């Protein structure tokens, strides 16, 4: 038998991992170049030129990038602060157990829950009304579907903070960072310097790959911005799904162009970090 069981299994694995991606990519690329699709009439670069001339597409791209950057930075900083607080505590303190709660939420459920916490008619607004801080719905600051994406950022932090906090805490313990921290303090470092120059860099370096993976995850987030985001600018995933599923047939190739662009970017970033990084990253 030329192909042993092992080879069949490995081939099946490679095919499951890559074939659907390749099929989807080829179809979207073909559509974006005018090769496939009922409305297309042959090879053209027009759709790509339209995409890059589109202010909407650029704003979506930049918005997604900024949202990812701010989300992952907030998560890292808060997880760093919490790990600093948890590292000297017993492993299963009440606060740590409490931090497991966000892990129960699917992104849809988290988006929904936070919408009814933060919206002008939500719980916080009603509490502020009851306390006499605001008069009505309009006087409460907008935190959902808002210009600063406060709701989206909060939910991102809510969903991912526990994971990073637990990993950071476990790692800080195993690296004995608390002792190093004490040493740095005794040598004259301030608490802020210890945190920004010792604690965070050590943990970030250790979890570089995981941070990249979560950044990629934030770039692909869909449900949360769909619930809590604005209609413009919107994240890439919402942009793509709108272009591909809405009624304007002219926009479908643009959706495919963006899908190709997005998946190519993810592929390049992932390949760079997965295959170039030495195993010490782990």
């Amino acid at each position: 038998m030329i192909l042993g069981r092992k080879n069949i299994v490995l081939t099946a694995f490679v095919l499951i991992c890559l074939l659907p991606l390749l099929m989807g990519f080829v179809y979207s690329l073909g559509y974006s170049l005018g090769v496939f699709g009922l409305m297309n009439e042959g090879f053209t670069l027009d759709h790509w030129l339209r995409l890059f001339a589109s202010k909407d597409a650029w704003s979506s791209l930049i918005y997604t990038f900024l949202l990812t950057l701010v989300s992952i930075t907030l998560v890292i900083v808060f997880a760093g602060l919490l790990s600093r607080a948890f590292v000297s505590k017993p492993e299963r303190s009440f606060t740590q157990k409490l931090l497991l709660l966000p892990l129960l939420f699917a992104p849809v459920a988290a988006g929904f829950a936070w919408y009814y916490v933060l919206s002008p008619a939500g719980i916080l607004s009603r509490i502020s009304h009851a306390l006499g801080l605001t008069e009505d719905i309009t006087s409460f600051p907008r935190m959902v579907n808002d210009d600063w994406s406060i709701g989206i950022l909060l939910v991102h932090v809510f969903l991912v903070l526990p994971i990073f906090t637990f990993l950071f805490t476990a790692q800080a313990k195993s690296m004995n960072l608390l002792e190093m921290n004490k040493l740095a303090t005794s040598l004259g470092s301030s608490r802020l310097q210890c945190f920004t120059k010792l604690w965070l860099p050590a943990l970030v370096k250790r979890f570089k790959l995981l941070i990249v993976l979560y950044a990629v995850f934030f770039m692909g987030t869909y449900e949360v911005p769909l619930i809590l985001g604005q209609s413009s600018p919107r994240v890439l995933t919402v942009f793509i799904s709108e272009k591909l599923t809405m009624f304007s047939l002219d926009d479908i190739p643009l959706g495919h162009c963006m899908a190709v662009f997005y998946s190519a970017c993810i592929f390049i970033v992932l390949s760079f970090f997965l295959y170039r990084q030495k195993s010490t990253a782990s």
Partner: protein
Amino acid sequence: MMKLGKSTLALFVLLPLLCVIYLSVVSAWTYPLLFDAEFSLKHYLVLFSGESELAWSFVQSVLLSLVMATLGLLFGFFVAKEIAFSKYGSRLLKLAFYPYMIAPVVLGSMLQFYFVRWGLSASFFGVMLAQCLFILPYAVLIMSSFWSENILQLFKLGQSLGGDAKTVKRTLLYPLAKPWMLLTFAQCFLISWFEYGITQVLGIGKVKTLSVISMQFLKEANPHPAAVAAVLMIVPVLLTFIILYRWQNKAQGNWSAIAPINNSLSHHPKKVGA
């Protein structure tokens, strides 16, 4: 300062949960009512009426997630073994990240043409197949951390002491793999349970899992049934979590194995580079 921090953290994690539970047991929660809205269990009672879309959606979600978890476990267990002992194991294993890191909604949009053409769109089987595309590779990622040279040596030792392959598997291999199998099953269940994007795109809204129906209620500005759907999504996760937590307590006392349980990003890069 410390107390303020703890209270803020407690509020941050508790508020959404309390909000969802509260919304599911009241009706007519008009502004500016805070906690004095009319208490009602009618949104839950509808579940038992026999015609409830939500109840059917719950059953469908449980079925889908159980099937996906079982498939993930079987696929992960056997494929991870072959990969672990392959010459190109670590390189091959990294391939599992690719389908997982592309947003499911984008992957679904790119594959929609094929699903429509093959008649898989808007069907339970189609959604299942679509979820397989990223759940199966992910299961391999988790299970690969079990298969090591040490396990292989133990297996050989068992055989050299007189056990046949079947007995060694039953008495040594499976008990050793049990925690990983449990973790893989739970994680695959949760990924499927949490999934919205690809289910919506390829199910075209006809395969109504809990996340799909929850979003539908939300779009209709119907918060009370949406809250019931959210509670139904949270309870099974809570049960899974308690089981994992207890097992974790017994096994290692280490958080990291159950920590990455959420939003389907639970792979441990530790295992990949190794």
